């Protein structure tokens, strides 16, 4: 019995020692491959394409040729191009990268458009977009908003959280989507806007 206790203790010590060493090895667990989806999307000129990254270490960097990227670290990425063509967007994470292809076709005359296709606002700022083309009658929808009045050619929204938001306008059964990237506010408050002085609207008749 005495011997058994000794061996049990030895087993326990060996297990703890090996497990202790194994904690170090957990950090070498494989990082899942980074991917970009949809792999290919087709949009009209100046229409937003929304892409989503997955895998990697959860931190992403988006890039593309001649692409002016304002905020490149999110899981989702919105992009629009003014000229037809095929464009490649690259997402990188943990030393790996993946690509999405965005095919931009010319917008047909009178087709439904939502503009600006992509815009950045900070928390608390109001984002405004407008619709043109289509039948002239519009319905706005968004998974991110409580919409007070969905009908109108323009739409203004304010958001309570950061991230990429989408606004979809539908007209005559056709839809188009604008993307709004809501960024955290600057740590220093923006300078107050300069408003003009009151007008000189009097000539002092008879004075």
């Amino acid at each position: 019995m005495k011997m058994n206790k000794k061996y049990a203790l030895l087993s326990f010590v060996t297990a703890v020692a090996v497990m202790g060493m194994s904690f170090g090895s957990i950090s070498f667990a494989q990082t899942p491959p980074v991917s970009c989806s949809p792999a290919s999307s087709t949009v009209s000129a100046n229409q937003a394409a929304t892409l989503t990254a997955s895998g990697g270490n959860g931190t992403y960097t988006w890039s593309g040729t001649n692409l002016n990227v304002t905020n490149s670290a999110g899981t989702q990425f919105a992009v629009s191009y003014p000229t037809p063509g095929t464009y490649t967007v690259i997402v990188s994470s943990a030393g790996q990268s993946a690509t999405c292809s965005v095919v931009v076709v010319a917008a047909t005359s009178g087709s439904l458009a939502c503009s600006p296709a992509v815009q950045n606002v900070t928390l608390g700022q109001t984002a405004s977009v407008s619709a043109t083309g289509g039948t002239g009658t519009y319905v706005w929808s968004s998974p991110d908003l409580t919409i007070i009045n969905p009908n109108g050619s323009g739409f203004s929204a304010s958001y309570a959280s950061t991230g990429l938001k989408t606004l979809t306008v539908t007209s005559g059964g056709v839809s188009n989507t604008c993307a709004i990237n809501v960024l955290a506010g600057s740590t220093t408050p923006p300078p107050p806007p300069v408003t003009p002085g009151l007008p000189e609207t009097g000539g002092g008749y008879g004075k």
Partner: protein
Amino acid sequence: MKKAVLLSIGVGLLVAGLSVFIQTRELAAQTYTQEPTSSSTTPQGSGTSFTEPAAPARLIIPAIGVDANVQSVGLSWKGDGKVGIPTNFTDVAWYNQGPKPGMPGIAVINGHVDGKDVEKAVFYDLGKLKPGDAVEVVDKKGTVLQFRVVESRTYDYDSPTDDIFIGDSAKTRLNLITCSGDWDREKKTYRQRTVVTAELVTEGNL
């Protein structure tokens, strides 16, 4: 004895191996399970649509007999930082660096109260407007926008103007401005400005 020691080490290695297997699987599962950061089914803000108007063309205020052409102005040509004014005494002037009437925020239109040689200009009676009075703006597409007066305020001529030009974007307002108060002979200006605020009439505030 030797056998027993080897057996103990073997059991220890087995337990440790099993533990590492379980931990690695959990870590991999956590790494793969990433929530999207921005798509959500819960509304995270609010929005409203509006019919985007064209630039204003005419201003009509039946209560004080105004039916005026609307000029488009920026800042005064004098470079004094003041809002521009109409070039005659019968027109009014829309400040084109702000929203158009009918867009969220505050649109601003000003007009003369008088001239050096003109007793009554277009906004001579602006101060007589009362809450509830109708104000109409016809835009360049011919769309008629109905406003209703909600308040009238008086400011010193050199007051800060933030609350006159910048407002709650959830509301669609129109500020009408003209001179009022005593004439300051030295500064050659009236000492005050009357600001009449009208709000767009929508289905929600009829």
